[in-house]
């Protein structure tokens, strides 16, 4: 075998603390190495051309590039060696940047370590085999999970791209948080006026199949061929018959049901259509409050319904769908404000969340758009907004910024003045985060045109006094204590990962961070992809995002899906496991551990044996670690290759 080693300076990134020329020189001593050189930027066009030239001039069989992390440039260099006529798996990368130059300053030690890592890569390359991908068919349907604005956008864009879309929404209507908002920053246009048409498009698009009140139960398969089981909860109403007339709601005697859509500002009826623009606009019975379902009596809705749509013995059902790609758009949920005992959230009725306040402002809300405080229905005159409740606070394990609260607080202050001209608003803030087109101008308007009093400091406590709330806090700019006598306090509750997000991530086999937000494949360069092929992210399930960013990511995810679906066949990654039949004793342990169901038992002359389904295997290596016989080996990462690497390290 003839091996070439190319050591990259990465400008001064590597060159600054590693003597690249010496690494190249020392690599000449490694077995089978016939050519070495050091290059300024191996990934640049001249860098890659140099590699191709060297392969041709020296008839190299394989190439080692000692440079940066393989996550970025392994695909780059694989293509390079392929252009020179080699199999793209006759290539290894030694990471002497993240693993060496960036983490140590001692040039001597760094150089030695870089030589060792290069030596390891050479030993692995010596045992590499050319590998070839297999092609398989692709199912060009997409599943979108979550029907918030991000999921809606992704679904519409995919459907407009002429692909069938399955949209799964947990609630009885799509729309997500945006449907609950009154107006939206920075233009203060009516939220349901701009979202409503999109929701209707979803309902009417022939390419979109919407399952509301449904959740993903199970996901099997792999990119191009996912098998999804969807659990559809029972609304106790036959939605094919329900016309959304709402007569049932008018007559339902159980009026103390939880009003989830209105964020529990007030209550609603047991049979309910959450809001006039709901999509689908269908009634749902809450079995916890329905008198018929809890006590066996009543049934008034069934009598009144003109289409006889009520079905008290309806059961939930499991629906199977086959898709080729998945967009996760499950959004966020709100931080539980009762965790700040000193603010009285959950205890004092007039301490509410920002989202509850949106419902009070909204014309379709429980108060018909007249701001009335929950305790006595009086119109508040002094309103205090407290920012960063459950954001940027390590003490409640929420060190991150929720991103949109500064902006929506400014919006709410403006709207308050519009609703109640003789009111005064105070905002307690840490600092104002308003980067974005027209954003800073918008917060300025809240202060300058609408006279909102911004107080820089934290609120230390909120307590009731008479029918008022005393808000005590610090003004850190003035260096004084402040106390405001308020009628209503609005807490800007931070954004959290949606309830059940980590569980869903595991079904999707994607990573999630400590807080439950889904992990993108690369924070800068692959913000929509996940590390699972065929699964993409849209909206605030990936981290708090405002509407423009959520919509943009929804469209971006759709673009990724459409690009994937532009191909007629997909190629598998040939770094998969293979069974050595001689060695396999057919115990089936590998079958049991494989998380992808990629191994089946076959019969070879009367003996049970394992066989890997090549297009299903994801190369995770669990089976190889489990098989006691060593009968199943992961191509490109065989036991022998790993051993050779360890040996090289121990002997250098």
């Amino acid at each position, binding site marked *: 075998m003839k091996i070439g080693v190319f050591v990259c300076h990465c400008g001064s990134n590597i060159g600054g603390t590693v003597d690249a020329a010496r690494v190249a020189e020392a690599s000449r001593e490694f077995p089978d190495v016939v050519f070495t050189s050091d290059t300024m930027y191996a990934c640049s066009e001249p860098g890659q051309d140099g590699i191709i030239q060297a392969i041709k001039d020296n008839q190299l069989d394989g190439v080692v590039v000692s440079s940066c992390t393989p996550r970025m440039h392994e695909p780059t260099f694989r293509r390079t060696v392929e252009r020179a006529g080699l199999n793209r798996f006759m290539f290894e990368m030694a990471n002497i940047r993240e693993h060496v130059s960036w983490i140590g300053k001692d040039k001597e030690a760094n150089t030695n370590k870089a030589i060792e890592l290069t030596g390891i890569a050479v030993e692995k390359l010596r045992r590499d085999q050319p590998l070839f991908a297999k092609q398989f068919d692709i199912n060009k349907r997409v599943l979108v999970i979550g029907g918030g604005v991000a999921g809606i956008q992704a679904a519409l864009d995919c459907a407009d791209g002429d692909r069938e879309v399955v949209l799964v929404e947990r609630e009885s209507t799509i729309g997500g948080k945006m449907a609950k908002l009154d107006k939206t920053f920075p233009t203060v246009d009516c939220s349901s006026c701009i979202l409503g048409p999109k929701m209707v498009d979803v309902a009417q698009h022939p390419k979109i199949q919407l399952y509301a009140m449904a959740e993903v139960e199970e996901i099997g398969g792999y990119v191009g061929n996912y098998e999804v089981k969807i659990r559809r909860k029972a609304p106790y109403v036959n939605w094919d018959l329900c016309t959304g007339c709402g007569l049932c709601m008018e007559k339902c005697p159980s009026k103390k049901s939880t009003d989830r859509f209105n964020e529990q500002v007030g209550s609603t009826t047991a049979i309910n259509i959450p809001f006039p623009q709901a999509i689908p606009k269908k009634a749902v019975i809450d079995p916890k409050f329905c008198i018929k379902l809890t006590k066996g009596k009543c049934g008034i809705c069934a009598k009144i319904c003109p289409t006889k749509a009520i079905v008290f013995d309806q059961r939930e059902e499991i629906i199977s769908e086959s898709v080729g790609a998945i967009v996760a758009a499950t959004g966020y949920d709100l931080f539980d404000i009762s965790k700040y005992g000193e603010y009285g959230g959950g205890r004092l009725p007039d301490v509410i969340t920002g989202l509850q306040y949106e419902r009070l402002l909204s014309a379709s809300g429980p108060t018909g758009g007249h701001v009335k405080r929950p305790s006595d229905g009086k119109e508040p005159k002094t309103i205090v907004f407290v920012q960063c409740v459950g954001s940027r606070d390590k003490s409640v394990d929420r060190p991150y910024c929720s991103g949109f609260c500064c902006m929506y607080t400014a919006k709410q202050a403006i709207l308050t003045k519009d609703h109640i001209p003789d009111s005064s608003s105070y905002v307690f803030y840490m600092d104002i985060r308003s980067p974005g087109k027209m954003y800073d101008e918008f917060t300025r308007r809240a202060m300058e045109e609408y006279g909102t009093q911004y107080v820089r400091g934290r609120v230390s406590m909120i307590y009731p006094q008479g029918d008022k709330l005393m808000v005590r806090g610090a003004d850190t700019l003035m260096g004084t204590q402040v106390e405001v006598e308020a009628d209503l306090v609005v807490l800007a509750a931070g954004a959290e990962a949606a309830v059940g997000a980590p569980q869903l991530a595991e079904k999707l086999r994607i990573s999630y961070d400590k807080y439950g937000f889904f992990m993108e494949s690369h924070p800068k360069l692959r913000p929509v992809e996940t590390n699972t092929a065929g699964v993409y992210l849209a909206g605030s399930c990936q981290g708090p995002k405002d509407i423009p960013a959520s919509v943009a990511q929804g469209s971006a995810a759709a673009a990724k899906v459409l690009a994937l679906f532009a191909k007629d066949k997909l190629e598998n990654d040939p770094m998969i496991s293979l069974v050595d039949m001689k060695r396999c*004793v057919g*115990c*089936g342990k590998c079958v*049991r551990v494989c998380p992808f169901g990629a191994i089946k038992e076959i019969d070879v002359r009367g003996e049970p044996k394992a066989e890997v389904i090549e297009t299903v295997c994801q190369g995770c290596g669990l089976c190889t670690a489990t098989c*006691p016989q060593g009968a199943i080996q992961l191509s490109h990462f065989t*036991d022998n290759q790993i*051993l050779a690497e360890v040996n090289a390290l121990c002997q250098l």
Partner: protein
Amino acid sequence: MTILTQLKEQITAQLPKLDMVIGWEQGYDALHATPLFMRAAEDVERLQIGPLSVHNTATYLTGLRNKKVGLVVKGCDSRAVVQLQQEGLIDRENVVVFGFPCDGVADLTKVRRLIGDVGRVEEVETTPTELRLRVDGREEQVAMSDVMADKCRRCQYPNALVHDHFAGKPREPHATSDDYTDVQEFESQSLETRFEHWKSEMSRCIRCYACRNACPMCVCRDHCIAQSRDPHWVTQDDMVREKWMFQVIHAMHLAGRCVECGECQRACPVDIPILALKRKMNKEIKEVFNYDAGVDPQAIPPLLSFQVEEENINERGW
């Protein structure tokens, strides 16, 4: 009717339906038993059970996968049957198990340490408390309590855990629990002491692989990593490092699978106490997964299954 007679009757009755029944008979002298493969009725006469029937008969099972095999088992042997069944390495319907209550076996290394290497033993009389040996015309007596195998002292399953026929009445377990005191004591020593212990023990290993061949759970046969070049985990270098590497791999492969029949250690011609390595692994498995190998045919061995999160390692707190 003695248990042995009853057992012989049961075997004779089943033998026509089976390719063979495996038990024990006297070996080259009265002290050493050897496995007996009964194919005809007259073979059954030679069957013996008792404290000298030390071998684990289940060791042969995987090599006889397509045959109908009868197996006379002690409690610990039956655990190997259970474990093999769990792991899909045998077809239970091809195996007929004959059980009996086991009073424990003698550790012949302990016997040798007591009376020395005496050569050919002419006769052995076994009583519930004693072994009486006749050697060179003279008689040696050893108390069973002095020579009983360690595994028997902590044995919780002396009656075959799975069986199709059972001779005699099930007996009380020899112990009610195993708290791995031996492992704990060993672990209480310093790392250096433990390291030195294994270095010196393993230096005696002659790489005969009797330990592996005797193990009922070692099923790789011709593909054992001890000889394999692909993958090439151990070399043939005559070094403690390589010998020990093999034992460590064996212990890892047996983690949560080893039924602690002790065959590996018994088979070792130079008496290396290698069962300790497997017991250490089993202790960990017990702590983490609350699992005992070879007890419940329906259970799934923890290291042979995949779960995103184990019950006892609840990192997510769901």
